[in-house]
Each structure stands twice: as structure tokens, then as C-alpha cells.
């Protein structure tokens, strides 16, 4: 162990290749004899495919093959299932119609972008041109896009097998009758109906996949822009194509962002793999940006009615929620888990609320699938709680900071005090929630702000402050717990540490980096634990052939779970190294100390360097009897609990009374993500998350018309946050170590996106309240100038 790297802002080693344009993404790969696939997609949200004529396309020079859903069906392939099972309240299994790779003749397309045929050609251009020659006749039906409308009697059905478009209903918390009673007996009830709008993840690299079947070995390789290579292989082999898993290699090379949207097993991955077998040539498909808008899984999309009860002293007495969640046309890999176990279980927030009940209805609609998007369920829970808190403070005429402090769970470290058992299944690990809020408020300069706000209230530029505090369940996840909750996989992680004979170290992790900087952070941990230079460590990930197994990266799990697996292997290395060192130094193992890269006999200056131990392990001429040569260990780490990062976000906005335009003036974030390995990378993760959370509050949101057409499916109309929409962020952090993993880390990837959205909307409302518009309870996100202006002028 040394202290050279952990906790230091080490520059990211991977950035050199990214910044110089030398990253290797799936679409950069050109395999010998590679062909190009163009997927023909439905322009309608709900229509029956009456006929498909491929003859003209097939006759085009340069076209290798054209396949339709009928070809796929003849191979006995049903489609892609979900990776998580949630049951109805009454115990029935959720409705899970598989997502066909291509929709065949006589079947119905379920959303704009549903795939109908694939043209494979010698070039991308030939494939696209020939696709125009495929004649498809559709009979168009009415569509439904809103989850509340979808479950009404008589709404157009997405799947015959799912009556009233209900995929499943679900509840969590205390018995409903108890919560009803507590609400009825409350001194004050704050009630709010609101929408958490649908978000398009928009990673900078569109999805891409290359299927490569080699008949010589009867083996397949799938290169794909995924966050999750091993799980893709498992799902595709076992549940979609029926290929033996040992015959398939999945590689997720450099991946340009995912934000959740690349966790899932998509139909295109199975399609190119299947096509490659048919033509015995590699088949590449790369999504166009416009295609990404209608095929990537979206996020959020909840319609909620929530009520929070208080006693006469302002203590929360109960929380009652009815939410409709839109799951889109098919169940994507983690879709059933997001509105349930990643959302319902977080409704305790940071508060001591004694009674909580969530009633959830998850609906199919004629839109693309909705699944995890940065934060996944936890931003929806935080938005709900924090909007209610600021609104309740406004209604009761109390200070929103005081109201939170009064209701916070008291500090506990999870070691001397037990973890906190919530009403909604989870047990929080450790936290000091008062501290992050107090720090944030101090950074704001609260009293001065209220004075400035009072002055501004007389002008045309209103000022507002919005508060938000959050907690998230990260480090996903204890396998036994998620298994009991319906996950069809374990959520442990694998870390292999291979010390080379020269003492250089190769590390293989099942976590996957698509922008998070694993190659740096993980190397910092390894270098310090072994006391060797950072340059002597290389991190490998993303290839099922080199990494034993893995569950990928999402849910802020990489360091907490993947890092812990590596630490376990490092401990085994150090322990075995001690046996070799004891032999070399002619000492007892117990008398040795390992520090700064060498084993030293306690109380002497006799020592042996780690590099010597490595060489001896591989050249075991003079070696302990009975000890195996080599220095290479692999470990599986299954966490004992989730980790629980938390924090406080504060937004200050200016609202133009005449135009309704909102300008974000300040943004303060005090986060506790446990111990920090690389503060620069953590800050970067927070910055990115904040941009996306603020984007939801002010700018972004998918809009479907009543026919199921996404009418803002391009960057001309879908408004992404840009640097000039954002102020310089003011960050601080507290460090409350996670008590149950060896690094004490909690995860930082999603925090920014979870806490920020309600802070901004609360600030907009606070500005309006200060300007005499106290009656406004809600403004739909994104809070565009038009919506804010209408709220003031209604």
C-alpha cells in the first residue's frame, strides 16, 4: 500500500487517444469482406404489414441479401425478452411480448422505427438506395402514446396479450389503508399532479454493431457499442438466437457515452449476428442520428399524482402516490425494474416519513421503449419528493430549508449506529444529511439571497432559489436481493489481476468504461495497493474473450462493485507474494509488512521488492515447497448492500417577467459519494450529470403527436443543453465512507442527474412566488419561456 495516487486528480490516461482522434469505436472497424446493413423501419406507430416486395432491391447490383421478418420467423427466433421480471400485484407474471428482430408480414409494427426488413450490400450507400426499392404495404391503425390514455377502456391495443395495455401493476410501502388514514388525519396535505417527461439519452456515439460469423470454427463475434458485453452475450445466446455461449465473443470497444441507453440488448445486435451466419460475411449496422431518436430506449415518462401529509409542527406524516409509467411498445432489458425497484424503493428520500405507499401502473404505448436513463427511477423519485417539499413549505409558509432539516433522518455511520431501515425495503448504509444541506446553504449565502430576491421582486427580472436533496441506491447490486426482486441475472462483478513476470500488471474488469475513466481510476487503486507506478498498470475491459465475466457498467456500480472485485484479487496477490517473500528473506510470513512496493521483515532493513517477487513467481527456481507458480488471481465480488450516495443541490434562477425566459444564474452541488479516488473525475461526472438534469428542467423532452410520430426527432427541435446554458458550477463534497465495501466508495455517475432537476424547477416556481404569482403550483418541464409566461398570465 502507498498513498501516491488514491485521492489525487490524476489526469485521465485514456484521454490522449480520445482527444487525438485515435479512439477505436465499433464503426471505425472494417473487417475483411464486411457488408453493410440498412434497416427499413416503419413510418407508422401502429400498422399491419400487409405485404413486402423485395424483388427490385434484391436485383440491385451490390446487394448481397434482403431479409424480412418471415425469414427470421422461419429460423424459430421469437425476439428479444426483458432481463427483469416484475409480477402484478395479484402475483401474475408481467406481460412480456418479445420484441421481434423484424416485424413479419401479417404482424403489426408497434412504434415508429420498428424494424421491418434489412438490406445488406457491399456499401452503406447501396444498401440505403436499395432499401428505397423495397415496397411495403401497411394498414394503419390508431395509436396511443400517453400512459394514462393507454390504460383507459377502448384505447388502441399495443399487444393483444396485454389487456388495457397494462404490462403490470405494482405497489410498495406500508399497507394502503394505513397511508390513507395517515393522510386523512394530517394537519396539512400538499398535493401535486405532474409529469416527468420523456427524455432522449443522446450519447455522442450512435449505436453500432458488427456481426461476424466464421464457418471455419463455427464461431461468432459481435462488436457492439454497449455498456454491457457479457450480459448481451448471455441474453442473445440463451434467450434470442439459441447459440451456445462458448461459441460467441462479444466486444464492446471504445464506446462514446451511453447514459444507460447502451445497457440493453437491442434487436439490431441479434439481427447482424443472425445475418452474418446467413451470408457468411461480417455485417455492420450503424445507427443514423435520426434513427437513434426512434430506436434507442428513452428515459423517465411518468405521470404522477402525489400527496404529502404534515402534522401541525411540519413533520411529514405520510406520502401517497399514484403513478402511470410509460414503458413504450416493448419491454427493454431493465425496463420493468426502473419504475419499480429503482424508483419505488427511493421514496423515503432523506426523510423520516413513517407511512409511504406507491401505486404504480406500467403501460405499453406505441412509442419506443423506455428504460434506464442516467439515474433511472431515482431522478423520478427525487423529483417527486423535492417538488413536494418546496411546494409544502410555500403552502405552509415555512422555510424550505428548515422544513427539510426538521424531517431529515439523523446522522448515522452504519458502523457504530445501524443502517437506516426505510418503509420501502432498503436499508441505507451511512449518511449525514444535515451536513450537506447546511454546507450548500452556506455557499449560497441564504440571507443575502433573500434580500436580493425581495428587491428583484419589484423589477421585471424575478429571482428564485430552489432546493433539492437526494439519496440514490447505487453500487448495483447484491445478487440475492435483486434475484428476489425479479432480476434474471446476478449483479456481482469480476476482477482479475495478472502480475506479469516483470512486475507489470494487467487488470481485467467486468465493468465497462464508456467515458467514466476506468483506465485511470482503477489503475490508481491497483498502483497504490501494490506500491508500483501507475504506468505499470493497464486496465482491460469490454471483451468477453479476455474478461472472465462481468455485469457491465450502470447504476454507478463500477468502482463500488468492480473496484472491490479488483481489491479482492489484489489481496490474494499480496498474500501469495508474502509466501514467496518469506521464502526469499528466510523469515516468517507473519513478520513481514508489505508497503511502498516491498515486503520488509519487521524491525530490520531486510526487504524484497514486488518486482522480484513477480519474477520469482514465474521463474520458480528457488521457491516455497508446495506453492503453485504464477501470480494471477480472479475474484467475484457480490456486494452486501447497495451504496447510498446523497447530496444537496441548489439552483438560483432569474425569470424574465415579460418573456418567461429562465436563466440559470448559479448552481451549487454538495455531494457525498463516499471516498473519492480521483476528485477530478468525480467532478467531471457531477458536471455531466448536472448538465443532463438541468437539461430536463429547462430544455429537453421528447414530443410525440397523437399518431405516435416523434415530432422533435432531430437536433433542430430536440433542445440539448449547451455550455452557454449553464453557469460555472459551484461544487463541494463531504466524504462519508461506505461501510461495506473495501474502498469505502459509493458511486458518482448519476448523482448530478438525480438531484439537479427539481432544484431548477423549484427555483423557477420560487421566482414566480416572489413576484406575486403564489397560486402557480406547477410548470411542465421543460420550463420553456412560453410555459413560464402562460403560468404568470393565466
Amino acid at each position, binding site marked *: 500500500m502507498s498513498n501516491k495516487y488514491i485521492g489525487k486528480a490524476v489526469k485521465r490516461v485514456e484521454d490522449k487517444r480520445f482527444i487525438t482522434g485515435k479512439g477505436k469505436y465499433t464503426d471505425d472497424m472494417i473487417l475483411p469482406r464486411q457488408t453493410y446493413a440498412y434497416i427499413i423501419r416503419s*413510418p*407508422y406507430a401502429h400498422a399491419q404489414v400487409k405485404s413486402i416486395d423485395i424483388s427490385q432491391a434484391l436485383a440491385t447490383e451490390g446487394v448481397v441479401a434482403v431479409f424480412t421478418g418471415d425469414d427470421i420467423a422461419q429460423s424459430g427466433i421469437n425476439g428479444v425478452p426483458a432481463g427483469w421480471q416484475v409480477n402484478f400485484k395479484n402475483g401474475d407474471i408481467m406481460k412480456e411480448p418479445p420484441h421481434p428482430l423484424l416485424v413479419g408480414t401479417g404482424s403489426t409494427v408497434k412504434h*415508429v422505427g420498428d424494424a421491418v426488413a434489412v438490406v445488406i450490400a457491399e456499401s452503406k450507400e447501396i444498401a440505403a438506395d436499395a*432499401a*428505397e426499392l423495397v415496397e411495403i404495404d401497411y394498414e394503419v391503425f390508431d395509436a396511443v402514446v400517453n400512459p394514462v390514455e393507454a390504460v383507459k377502456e377502448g384505447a388502441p391495443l399495443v399487444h393483444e396479450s396485454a389487456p388495457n395495455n397494462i404490462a403490470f401493476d405494482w405497489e410498495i410501502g406500508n399497507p394502503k389503508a394505513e397511508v390513507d388514514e395517515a393522510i386523512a388525519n394530517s394537519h396539512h396535505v400538499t398535493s401535486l399532479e405532474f409529469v416527468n417527461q420523456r427524455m432522449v439519452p443522446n450519447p455522442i456515439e450512435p449505436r453500432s454493431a458488427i456481426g461476424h460469423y466464421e464457418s471455419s470454427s463455427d464461431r461468432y463475434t459481435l462488436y457492439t457499442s454497449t455498456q454491457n458485453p457479457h450480459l448481451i452475450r448471455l441474453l442473445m445466446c440463451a434467450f434470442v438466437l439459441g447459440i451456445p455461449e462458448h461459441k460467441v465473443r462479444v466486444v464492446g470497444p471504445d464506446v462514446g457515452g451511453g447514459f444507460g441507453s447502451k445497457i440493453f440488448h437491442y434487436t439490431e445486435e441479434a439481427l447482424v449476428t443472425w445475418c452474418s451466419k446467413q451470408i457468411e460475411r461480417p455485417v455492420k449496422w450503424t445507427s443514423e442520428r*435520426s434513427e437513434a*431518436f*426512434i430506436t434507442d430506449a428513452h428515459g423517465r415518462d411518468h405521470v404522477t399524482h402525489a400527496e404529502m401529509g404534515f402534522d401541525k409542527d411540519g413533520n411529514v406524516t405520510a406520502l401517497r402516490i399514484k403513478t402511470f409509467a410509460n414503458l413504450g411498445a416493448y419491454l427493454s432489458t431493465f425496463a420493468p425494474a426502473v419504475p419499480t425497484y429503482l424508483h419505488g424503493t427511493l421514496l423515503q428520500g432523506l426523510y423520516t416519513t413513517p407511512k409511504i405507499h406507491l401505486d404504480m401502473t406500467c403501460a405499453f404505448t406505441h412509442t419506443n421503449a423506455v428504460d434506464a436513463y442516467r439515474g433511472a427511477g431515482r431522478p423520478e423519485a427525487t423529483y417527486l419528493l423535492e417538488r413536494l417539499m418546496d411546494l409544502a413549505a410555500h403552502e405552509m409558509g415555512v422555510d424550505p430549508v428548515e422544513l427539510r432539516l426538521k424531517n431529515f433522518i439523523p446522522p448515522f455511520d452504519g458502523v457504530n449506529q445501524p443502517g437506516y431501515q426505510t418503509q420501502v425495503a432498503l436499508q441505507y448504509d451511512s449518511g449525514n444529511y444535515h451536513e450537506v444541506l447546511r454546507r450548500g446553504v452556506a455557499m449560497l449565502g441564504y440571507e443575502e439571497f433573500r434580500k436580493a430576491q425581495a428587491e428583484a421582486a419589484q423589477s421585471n427580472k424575478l429571482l428564485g432559489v430552489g432546493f433539492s436533496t437526494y439519496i440514490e441506491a447505487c453500487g448495483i447490486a447484491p445478487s440475492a436481493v435483486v434475484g428476489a426482486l425479479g432480476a434474471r441475472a446476478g449483479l456481482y462483478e469480476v476482477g482479475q489481476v495478472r502480475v506479469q513476470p516483470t512486475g507489470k500488471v494487467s487488470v481485467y474488469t467486468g465493468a465497462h468504461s464508456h467515458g467514466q475513466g476506468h483506465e485511470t481510476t482503477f489503475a490508481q487503486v491497483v498502483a497504490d495497493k501494490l506500491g508500483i507506478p501507475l504506468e505499470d498498470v493497464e486496465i482491460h475491459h469490454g471483451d468477453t474473450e479476455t474478461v472472465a465475466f462481468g455485469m457491465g457498467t450502470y447504476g454507478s456500480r463500477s468502482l463500488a462493485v468492480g473496484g472491490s472485485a479488483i481489491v479482492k484479487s489484489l489481496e490474494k496477490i499480496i498474500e501469495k507474494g508474502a509466501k514467496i517473500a518469506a521464502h526469499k528473506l528466510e523469515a516468517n510470513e507473519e513478520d513481514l509488512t508489505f508497503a511502498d512496493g516491498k515486503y520488509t521483515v519487521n524491525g530490520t532493513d531486510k526487504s524484497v521488492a514486488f518486482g522480484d517477487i513477480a519474477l520469482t513467481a514465474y521463474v520458480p527456481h528457488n521457491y516455497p515447497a508446495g506453492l503453485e507458480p504464477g501470480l494471477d488471481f480472479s475474484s467475484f465480488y457480490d456486494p452486501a448492500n447497495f451504496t447510498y450516495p446523497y447530496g444537496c443541490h441548489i439552483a438560483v434562477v432569474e425569470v424574465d417577467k415579460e418573456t418567461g425566459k429562465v436563466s440559470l444564474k448559479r448552481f451549487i452541488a454538495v455531494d457525498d459519494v463516499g471516498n473519492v479516488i480521483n476528485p477530478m473525475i468525480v467532478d467531471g461526472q457531477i458536471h455531466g450529470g448536472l448538465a443532463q438534469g438541468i437539461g430536463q428542467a429547462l430544455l429537453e423532452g421528447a414530443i410525440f*403527436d397523437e*399518431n405516435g*410520430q*416523434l*415530432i*422533435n*426527432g*432531430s437536433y*433542430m*427541435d430536440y433542445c440539448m443543453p449547451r455550455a452557454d446554458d449553464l453557469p460555472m458550477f459551484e461544487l463541494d463534497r463531504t466524504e462519508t465512507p461506505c461501510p461495506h465495501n473495501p474502498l469505502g466508495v459509493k458511486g458518482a455517475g448519476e448523482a448530478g442527474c438525480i438531484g439537479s432537476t427539481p432544484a431548477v424547477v423549484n427555483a423557477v416556481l420560487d421566482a414566480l412566488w416572489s413576484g406575486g404569482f403564489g397560486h402557480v403550483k406547477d410548470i411542465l418541464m421543460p420550463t420553456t419561456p412560453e410555459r413560464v409566461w402562460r403560468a404568470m398570465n393565466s
Partner: protein
Amino acid sequence: MQLTGSHTLAAPIEKVWQMLMDTDILAKIVPGVSRLEKTGENEFEAISEIKLGPVSGKFSGGLTLSDIVEPSTFTLNVSQNSKIGNADASIKINLLALDAQQTEISFEGEAKLSGLLARTGQRVLSGVANTLTKQFFTNFEEEIAS
């Protein structure tokens, strides 16, 4: 997408009406039309090619006229398909004689779009629609003058 507009033509209302009802003339003045065939009473088949910025494609499909009140009003129903998406529109067209030599045409309607057409920037599409309308009236004026 909403479609509205108006334009004044230097021709008597009867002449404007007559030209609008003439398939050969329409085929000449509607932008991008390469073929317009009468398939029945007030029913036509049209093939057109449009290239304007992001909207570039070959459209084909039917046109029908309904609610005809000579010489003042009719409704044009358009159902055009293309690889970049389909357009279904119903447009009410009104003619008003301003004086013996001047006629105002106004139109009002809504187009339902699907596929890539629907996803393409709405502001861009409105621009495309305005450009096409302008071209139509310019062609119309030239036809009157010829």
C-alpha cells in the same frame, strides 16, 4: 403541421377556377409534379419529386377534390407516400373575386406527417411548405400571363 396562406392573382375568378380544375395546367404549376393523371371523377394520381434541403424524395399517391362549390371553394385531399415518410393533408381552398380582374386565393388546412418527414425540424418543414407555396403561385402567375 398547419398550412395557411393567401395570394392575389391578376385574373377573373372564373378563369382562376377553370385553371385549378384543369389537370394539364395543374401538372405544370404544382412544384415538382412529373405526372398527374385523372383516375375518376375528381380523383387523381400524382407523382412528384421534391428536393429542398432535408426534404428530398419521390412522392406518389392520390389527390381528391371534394365539397366543390363553383367557383368559390373546394377541399383538396392529398395522400402522398415516399421513402422519407408520408403526408396526408386536407386543405380547404377559397376563391374571392376582389374585382373583375383580381382574385384572392386563400387556403387553410392541416398535414399529418409520418416517418422522417415528421421528425425533420418543424421549422425547416414550414420553410419548405412556404417555398413550395410561393413557387406554386409564381408558376400560376406565369401561366395566367402566357
